[in-house]
């Protein structure tokens, strides 16, 4: 009973029109869940609702029916008995006549008709009755938008779900639908209506069926929407966009061939419209419709379509942009607009469909013929009028598409137009067999006509793309009997000769030389026909390569030509690679790659090395095989030059080898690495570098200069880092053996652990401070290997290496310090059972680094280094703190510590804290200014550093150490991203201000001061920062006011004043008390010696003066 009364309550609540929408939803949910959980059957709900469904009160009845309908919508997947469904659909069908309570009826019908078969569905006959009732009773266009939408959804659902049942209604259905959709304007409803049409025409596919007589009527309704004119602004909350509507309408247009007599004339008419979107739409629709309607139906429109198509292309093509960015595209490609793109794709579609008629139209077209006849009257591109250029371009595009579409169309184009063109150009048929080029007496006697060659290139590139686009299918079936092949074979010699002669005579007048373009593009197309010897012979192909190659090696002063030729060669190379043309690949290798490689090692002064390398690395990108060859060639050159350096100390070779290494590591290696699969070569390179060092016992010491060392290190790093762990292991073993056997370093593991060892007398006088150059060289290279390896790679004798790096970094070998930092970063923390490839843990390494002691003799010579825990020596920490009383040593120690700190930072290791403390101790106790900039290594550790620094600052008693700490703080701060600082702005501002006032006193700190001020201005201009600033407004303003007269840096004064301007935006209460003071201070800014400062001062004064008063006291 309780449920019963609840139910009544919910129903009452739903029919009460004064309730809010959330209340309505709540009561609907309550009722629906009762039904869902079987607490209430749908039958008893209907019984319970009885009165509400039948009362004569329109409003209550409408709400009641809607409630029932909504409940049905909620239980769509719940199984219902067929009898129940029958009676429910009967009820709602009936209610469709009740226009005052229509919403509920529509929702109910829709909910029932949408049901899936597992939950019980409406029978076909019931659906038919519902449809009948719909057609009889509903005046769709007189309803509101939402009801109309429901009506269309219902109709759409009937057509989709019960096609057979509704089809029986025949003419009535078609007529009813026409009536319902006529003059619909709402976009969402239109999407539905377009789909309804599509579904409808599928019901009556018979060309003599009921639809046939109505096709005209339906299209009359549909046609007026074309082209879609969409006035809803973009920002409005409409889900449907113009494109959606346009697509939906297009599929309605093309849904049945019965529309063809109406659609095509309409589209052709709209194509002549001046509206761009209308043209584009017409072309798209034509393309879509012609594919759906089929070739037969389209034939009768071919003539009309061709003429509008041609007009569209002619009127919308721009002037071709030659070489705008020295880009040589595949074939001739220009920036086409949307109309042209659509028009050309339509043309392609039509040619595929009905070949002969359209082709004969194209070949016989008067515009085409006119262009052909006029080509002879122009010699140069620039002679042609703008209109002429556009026409030429348009016809070129048309011919390209025609040639590209099919073999048949290609044959026709070549048979009629190409042969005529050849005549016009003065070429005659030639025997194709073999080396006719040599004995050929054909010499282009006069300048060739640009237009003719241009058209020839378009046709050839169409033909080429036709063959290349279809994989091997067409190529295999091609024979000389095909007209296009025959033509190509006959004229290829003349064409190549013509293009070549154009290039030979071309001057490098300007960047936009159309001759160069034509020549290069023509040769490139001729060289990129698939097939090793057919349709373009190997002989001709090789001839083209030779032509290009001679440009590369001798015409590098003509930059445009050279670049284009190089690009063409790269394209040819990648084309060969893509089509696996084995014979051509070997020609390419032989003529281009081998020659270029030999040119590189050739020591001639004609072609600059950089130019050679540019060509070489570019050619390499056209295929892995070529790149490998080139890599090997480069390696040979590198090694021969290196040995020249090592043995003879040849300074010229240094220069060469640096460039070679640069090219190898920046261009070749990254490309190989990206493509993958050629690791062996890279590994071998790194390995060979070590072998060579090993074999060169005598270094010609004086030439080992920094530039070469850096280039070699870079190359080794690149090479090693692109190897796998296994190969890295091989390389590092090799490197280690060289290091161990070829240097004076002693790497016996036992010796420094057991007892202290004597190093090679590290004298601490600057003169004797140097390692032998050869040792340093090898050590630096070894360090770069260590830096590049993966953490998993095994570093041999790791303890000795750590030790070696540690001692050498004290001698100022920076790579050693970096390598040590990198090792720290890669070592595993604590060997908790996990597999450790290096038998040394991070902790162990750290202990070693910080516990190793160093001894000095009386003369301050670093005597021994090693041993743990002995108290008589000094450790790295002490060195940093300056115990050894040797500045150079201390600086080196600190720089090493910084790199170790960086490694720890990346590991996130606790020890970093200790390192930081050492650092800060250095700062407070020592006089090492040089350590301060190194603080920026720690900026990633900002949140830890700041509290440490803060507490140190508080505790420090001497003003000197405090000032150093402040400086450290500034260094960290100015390198930290603003976002991080903003998060902590409140805490930081007091220190920041202390720093500011401290730095104000010292001239050498002016740049530091400026950096800090920029941080402050960053905080000020950020929304979150402003909150933090507000609290300290008083102090900040005071501080900034003193900076207005900071004499040593204009930028500081300017920025301080800008900060003050920003401060004037803060809440009035906070800043008002300061106003008079600020105005007084800023008046000094008005009299600044620098104009920029004065200008800012005027702005600032205005900002502060106007915060309080409407009148400004002067």
């Amino acid at each position: 009973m309780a449920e019963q009364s609840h139910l009544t309550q919910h129903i009452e609540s739903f029919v009460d029109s004064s309730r809010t929408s959330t209340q309505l939803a709540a009561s609907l949910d309550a009722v629906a869940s009762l039904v869902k959980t079987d607490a209430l059957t749908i039958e008893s709900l209907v019984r319970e609702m009885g009165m509400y469904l039948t009362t004569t009160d329109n409003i209550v009845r409408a709400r009641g029916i809607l409630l029932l309908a909504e409940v049905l919508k909620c239980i769509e997947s719940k199984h219902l008995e067929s009898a129940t469904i029958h009676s429910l659909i009967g009820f709602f069908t009936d209610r469709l006549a009740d226009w005052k309570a229509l919403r509920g009826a529509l929702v109910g019908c829709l909910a029932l008709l949408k049901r899936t078969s597992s939950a019980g569905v409406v029978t076909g006959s019931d659906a038919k009755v519902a449809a009948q009732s719909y057609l009889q009773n509903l005046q769709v266009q007189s309803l509101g938008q939402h009801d109309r939408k429901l009506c269309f959804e219902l109709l759409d659902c009937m057509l989709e779900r019960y096609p057979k049942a509704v089809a029986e209604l025949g003419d009535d259905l078609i007529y009813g639908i026409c009536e319902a959709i006529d003059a619909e304007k709402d976009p969402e409803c239109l999407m539905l209506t377009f789909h309804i049409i599509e579904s409808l025409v599928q019901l009556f596919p018979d060309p003599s069926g009921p639809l046939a007589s109505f096709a005209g009527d339906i299209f009359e309704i549909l046609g007026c929407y074309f082209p879609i004119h969409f006035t809803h602004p973009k920002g409005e909350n409409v889900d449907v966009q113009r494109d959606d509507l346009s697509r939906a309408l297009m599929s309605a247009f093309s849904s049945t061939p019965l529309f063809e007599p109406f659609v095509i004339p309409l589209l052709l008419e709209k194509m002549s419209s001046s509206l761009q979107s209308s043209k584009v739409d017409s072309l798209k629709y034509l393309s879509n419709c012609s594919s759906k309607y089929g070739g037969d139906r389209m034939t009768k429109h071919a003539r009309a379509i061709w003429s509008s198509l041609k007009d569209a292309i002619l009127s919308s093509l721009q002037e071709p942009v030659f070489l705008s960015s020295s880009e040589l595209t595949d074939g001739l490609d220009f920036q086409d607009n949307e109309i042209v793109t659509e028009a050309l794709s339509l043309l392609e579609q039509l040619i595929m469909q009905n070949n002969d008629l359209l082709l004969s139209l194209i070949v016989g077209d008067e515009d085409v013929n006119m262009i052909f006849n006029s080509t002879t009257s122009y010699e140069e591109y620039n002679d042609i009028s703008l209109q002429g250029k556009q026409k030429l371009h348009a016809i070129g595009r048309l011919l390209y598409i025609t040639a590209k579409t099919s073999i048949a169309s290609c044959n026709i184009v070549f048979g009629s137009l190409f042969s005529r063109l050849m005549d016009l150009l003065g070429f005659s048929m030639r025997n194709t067999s073999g080396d006719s080029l040599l004995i050929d007496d054909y010499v282009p006697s006069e300048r060739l006509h640009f237009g003719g060659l241009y058209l020839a290139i378009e046709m050839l590139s169409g033909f080429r793309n036709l063959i290349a686009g279809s994989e091997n299918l067409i190529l295999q079936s091609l024979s000389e009997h095909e007209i296009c092949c025959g033509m190509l074979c006959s004229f290829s010699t003349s064409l190549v000769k013509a293009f070549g002669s154009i290039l030979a005579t071309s001057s490098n007048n300007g960047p936009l030389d159309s001759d160069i373009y034509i020549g290069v593009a023509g040769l490139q197309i001729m060289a990129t026909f698939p097939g090793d010897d057919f349709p373009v012979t190997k002989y001709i192909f090789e001839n083209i390569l030779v032509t290009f190659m001679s440009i590369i090696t001798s015409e590098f002063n003509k930059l445009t030509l050279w670049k284009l030729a190089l690009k063409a060669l790269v394209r040819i190379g990648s084309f060969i690679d893509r089509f696996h043309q084995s014979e051509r690949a070997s020609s390419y290798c032989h003529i281009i790659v081998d020659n270029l490689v030999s040119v590189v090692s050739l020591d001639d002064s004609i072609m600059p090395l950089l130019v050679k390398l540019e060509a070489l690395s570019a050619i390499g990108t056209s295929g892995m095989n070529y790149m490998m060859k080139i890599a090997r060639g480069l390696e040979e050159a590198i090694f021969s030059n290196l040995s020249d350096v090592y043995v003879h100390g040849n300074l010229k070779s240094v220069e060469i080898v640096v460039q070679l290494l640069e090219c190898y590591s920046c261009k070749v290696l990254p490309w190989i690495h990206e493509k993958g699969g050629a690791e062996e070569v890279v590994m071998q390179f790194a390995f060979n570098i070590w072998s060579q060092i090993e074999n060169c016992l005598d270094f010609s010491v004086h030439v080992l200069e920094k530039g070469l060392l850096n280039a070699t290190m870079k190359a080794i790093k690149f090479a090693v880092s692109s190897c796998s762990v296994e190969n890295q292991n091989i390389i590092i073993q090799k490197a280690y053996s060289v290091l161990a056997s070829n240097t004076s370093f002693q790497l016996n593991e036992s010796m420094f652990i057991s007892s202290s060892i004597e190093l090679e007398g590290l004298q601490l006088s600057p003169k004797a401070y140097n390692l032998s150059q050869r040792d340093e060289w090898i050590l630096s290279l070894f360090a770069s290997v260590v830096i590049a390896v993966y953490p998993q790679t095994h570093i041999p004798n790791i303890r000795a290496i750590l030790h070696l790096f540690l001692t050498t970094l004290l001698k100022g070998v920076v790579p050693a310090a970096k390598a040590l930092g990198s090792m720290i970063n890669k070592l595993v923390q604590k060997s908790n059972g996990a597999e450790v490839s290096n038998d040394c843990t991070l902790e162990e390494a750290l202990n070693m680094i910080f516990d190793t002691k160093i001894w000095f003799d009386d003369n301050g010579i670093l005597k021994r280094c090693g041993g743990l825990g002995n108290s008589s020596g000094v450790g790295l920490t002490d060195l940093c703190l300056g115990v050894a009383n040797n500045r150079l040593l201390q600086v080196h120690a600190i720089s090493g510590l910084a790199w170790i700190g960086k490694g720890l930072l990346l590991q996130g290791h606790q020890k970093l804290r200790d390192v930081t403390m050492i650092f800060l101790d250095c700062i407070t106790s020592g006089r090492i200014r040089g350590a301060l900039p190194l603080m920026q290594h720690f900026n990633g550790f900002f949140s830890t550093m700041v509290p440490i620094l803060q507490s140190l600052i508080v505790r420090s008693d001497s003003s000197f150490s405090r000032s150093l700490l402040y400086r450290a703080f500034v260094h960290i701060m100015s390198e930290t991203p603003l976002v991080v600082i903003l998060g902590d702005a409140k805490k930081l501002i007091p220190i920041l201000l202390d720093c500011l006032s401290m730095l104000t006193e010292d001239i050498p700190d002016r740049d530091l001061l400026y950096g800090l001020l920029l941080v402050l201005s960053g905080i000020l201009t950020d929304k979150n920062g402003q909150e933090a600033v507000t609290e300290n407004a008083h102090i900040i303003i005071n501080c900034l006011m003193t900076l207005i007269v900071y004499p040593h840096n204009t930028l500081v004064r300017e920025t301080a004043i800008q900060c003050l301007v920003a401060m004037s935006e803060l809440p009035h209460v906070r800043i008002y008390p300061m106003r008079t003071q600020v105005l007084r201070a800023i008046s000094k800014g008005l009299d600044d010696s620098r104009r920029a400062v004065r200008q800012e001062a005027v702005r600032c004064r205005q900002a502060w003066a106007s915060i309080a008063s409407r009148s400004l006291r002067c």
Partner: protein
Amino acid sequence: MVSGLINANPILYEKKERRARSAPSVADEYAVEPIDQQEIFDHIRDIKDPEHPYSLEELKVITEDAIEVDDQHSYVRVTFTPTVEHCSMATIIGLCLRVKLMRSLPSRYKVDIKVAPGSHATEAAVNKQLNDKERVAAALENPNLVDMVDECLAPSFN
């Protein structure tokens, strides 16, 4: 207030191009850049005419040549040319010029504002009024006048 505009149809002139200053040499941080004609002109060129939405520069009420400045002796004189001879806005324009310069120049400066000779019917009276400290101070006590001046000056602060 007069109901119609005093000069309903002023002639507009092109704005002078903003000359970019050659960047101060980085080498000498302590070099002095004295206040010059162009700087003064930059201060006042964008002041809006009281009755038109145009700047004084566009109306050629002021030109760069009509500014005399002596930084050493802290003296500046601006001579302006009202668009019509009987312009009753001349005093307002003069007041705007004076206020703007007072706010933009160091306090050591003495500012003279003059109507160009022969360009105004009551030239002497206007000049006297503009250079009388007491009268200027009194004018700035008048809230209506101050509002007007502030409105004219607003574009020159951007």
